[in-house]
């Protein structure tokens, strides 16, 4: 049987609470393994602390997933996020879905090509759907 694969993609280290539990729940429902990809954009101001925080986020997620008996893998890549994601996908077996950890509003701003979020710019050219979990708004 071919193992299903879901990617959790983070390009920001401010993690929304619901993201990890959503990814783990989806993996359990779809009987999938989880792949966490943390993308760190490298600028002249990128700090060692950012790399350490990325490591901490990754280890936290690996631990939470393993506690739920989900097969999980994690990678941190540094560089231009669009290029790093495309290269990662090019080097990997196909994913059934990508869960993006950012806020949905960020993908909505399409006023100019430059202002369009990097993920929105390449979203249609990915080979699997991108899921952006959002909490239900209170009535």
């Amino acid at each position, binding site marked *: 049987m071919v193992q299903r694969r879901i990617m959790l993609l983070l390009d920001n280290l401010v993690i929304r609470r619901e993201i990890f539990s959503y990814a783990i729940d989806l993996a359990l429902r779809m009987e999938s393994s989880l792949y966490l990809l943390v993308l760190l954009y490298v600028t002249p101001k990128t700090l060692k602390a950012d790399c350490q925080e990325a490591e901490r986020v990754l280890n936290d997620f690996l631990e939470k997933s393993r506690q739920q008996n989900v097969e999980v893998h994690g990678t941190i890549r540094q560089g231009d996020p*669009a*290029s790093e994601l495309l290269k990662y996908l090019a080097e990997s077996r196909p994913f059934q879905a990508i869960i993006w950890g950012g806020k949905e509003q960020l993908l909505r701003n399409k006023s100019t090509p430059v202002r369009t979020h990097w993920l929105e710019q390449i979203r249609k*050219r990915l080979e699997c759907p991108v899921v952006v979990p959002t909490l239900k708004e209170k009535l």
Partner: protein
Amino acid sequence: MEKALQIVVVDDEPIVRKRLKPALEKNGYEVEVYEDGADLIKRLKEKIFDIVVTDLRMDNIDGIQVLKEVLNQSDHTKVIIITGYASVEVAREALTTGAFDFIAKPFKPNDLRVVIEKAADTLRAERAEAAVHK
């Protein structure tokens, strides 16, 4: 003193050539730029570059052809593909054909600088290893 790395950039977008040449020269590299892949291929017969930065989609010769020509001439040269038509398929083709790296446009000069530094480090490591085995 270490000799400056020889870099060539081929891209049919004038703005890319105009911005990258001074940005890379500022970092100590010797840089040539070409608008047309065919002109670069002629130049490759005269000179071996350390790093080739090529656009993927160009009128006469595309970046994959440039990549193949470069690798035919020298397997030490690192080829970086840049493209505004980035997709998983394109990245896969570039990397399996032998590109050192792949960058989606739009990118900032710093993004390319980071990749070029990575290529330069790899070249230095390969040369150091080759010197040990001589």
